[in-house]
């Protein structure tokens, strides 16, 4: 009986895995031009803010990239031709879903190895199972090994999040330290923020701040979080106490300046200029300079 349940469960799981593989490799129905622009853009890394796709980023370079995608699709080029055009110029790292070669190979092949190998493992006679498990591990290791040998083009080498957009990134510059008071709440807040749950993250930062009142890192992160969720007044209020004690804390100055700008406060320009003077090398500096020109 127990064995029958296990077999049914295994068949269901195997079926689901095969369905997943089939869905992920089968192209979908034809789409409108706008939907295709969105689809292609979603697969391209924003050139100046690599953690985001061209579809969601508000950076000027991402808008330019999206316009390029639209022009090319309108001119009758296919989605894969457009992707190849971007990869030619920027390198393969610009593709968010890497092609099935080089470093991207194991991502494409390992699911197949796992599903097929796992199925074979279940079907193997019990006394041969440990040998089959070894074979599966060796096959997976082989895929990884071959891929790393095949990765000869440095253009395939990729990493998300080098130069980052103004708000999200500046916030990631300083993670809360691990043994400070309220560290657990702070870690929870960061995780919530990463998951895009900004309101809950703000609450978690606030409770972390109760344990460590006036902590500059937590206050700045709370400020960025509130900016992202559109609460500019709250963001300014979050960093003001920090700035009273440490007027030269560049990240806090940045939060204040962006908050002032969002509320139409004319003080935004001098505040942002002060940020640039304090941290000319900050990843956000170029974007801030650009903001000031508008």
């Amino acid at each position, binding site marked *: 009986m127990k064995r029958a349940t296990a077999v049914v469960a295994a068949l269901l799981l195997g079926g689901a895995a095969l369905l997943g593989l089939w869905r992920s490799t089968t192209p979908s129905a034809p789409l409108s031009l706008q939907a295709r622009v969105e689809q292609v853009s979603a697969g391209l890394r924003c*050139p100046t803010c690599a953690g985001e796709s061209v579809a969601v980023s508000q950076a000027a370079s991402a808008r330019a990239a999206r316009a390029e995608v639209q022009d090319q699709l309108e001119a009758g080029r296919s989605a894969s031709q457009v992707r190849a055009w971007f990869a030619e110029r920027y390198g393969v790292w610009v593709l968010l879903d890497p092609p099935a070669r080089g470093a991207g190979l194991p991502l494409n092949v390992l699911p197949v190895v796992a599903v097929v190998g796992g199925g074979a493992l279940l079907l193997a006679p019990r006394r041969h199972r440990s040998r089959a498990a070894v074979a599966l591990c060796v096959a997976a290791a082989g895929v*990884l090994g071959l891929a790393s040998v095949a990765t000869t083009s440095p253009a395939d080498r990729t990493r998300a999040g080098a130069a980052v957009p103004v708000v999200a990134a500046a916030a990631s510059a300083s993670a809360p330290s691990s043994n400070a008071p309220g560290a657990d709440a702070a870690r929870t807040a960061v995780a919530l923020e990463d998951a895009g749950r900004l309101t809950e993250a703000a609450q978690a930062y606030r409770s972390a701040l109760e344990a460590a009142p006036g902590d500059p890192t937590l206050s700045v992160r709370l400020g960025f979080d509130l900016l992202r969720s559109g609460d500019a007044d709250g963001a300014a209020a979050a960093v003001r106490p920090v700035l009273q004690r440490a007027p030269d804390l560049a990240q806090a100055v940045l939060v204040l300046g962006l908050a002032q700008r969002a509320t139409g406060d004319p003080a935004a320009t001098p505040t942002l200029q002060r940020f640039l003077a304090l941290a000319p090398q900050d990843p956000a500096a170029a974007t801030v300079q650009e903001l000031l020109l508008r």
Partner: protein
Amino acid sequence: MSALALAGLVGVAAWLALSTGLGRDLRDLPSGLVGQPAPALAGRTLSGDSLDLVDLRGSVVLVNVWAAWCAPCREELPVLVAAQRGLGDRGLRVVGIDTRDGERQARELLAEFGGDPASSLVDPQGRLAVQWGAIGVPETFLLDAAGTVRARRIGPVTAQWVDDNVVPLLAP
């Protein structure tokens, strides 16, 4: 035996992670354009004239993506102006892509350092920068006389970089 296989798997995965450059900066990545024919580049310049890269075939060209709001661009401008003046006779042309910039500010900056507004294309939306695969400003592409991209420089160009990379491509 299976523990050994597992250890091997973990080892290979770790090696792969390291060799694929996790933790590397995008700025370390080579341009996909190096070794390829240069993309098209044509349009209106800061002086209002038109400029087409095709007309410069036969010259060694530095295509420099810049903007007046970019502090490191101000830093490198004297180097580029000096390169154009000193190496122009030997076949060097410096062409700018003035990207997402205020035209007045750009012209003022060029005037301050003696740069040529007729050699910088305006790129108000950043479209030209994307067509060249630029990830920021300043960024400079070196083209040989046949129009092939020979090098890409991210960050300000220095006199040393010009000596090492540009001069060897020029007529003696």
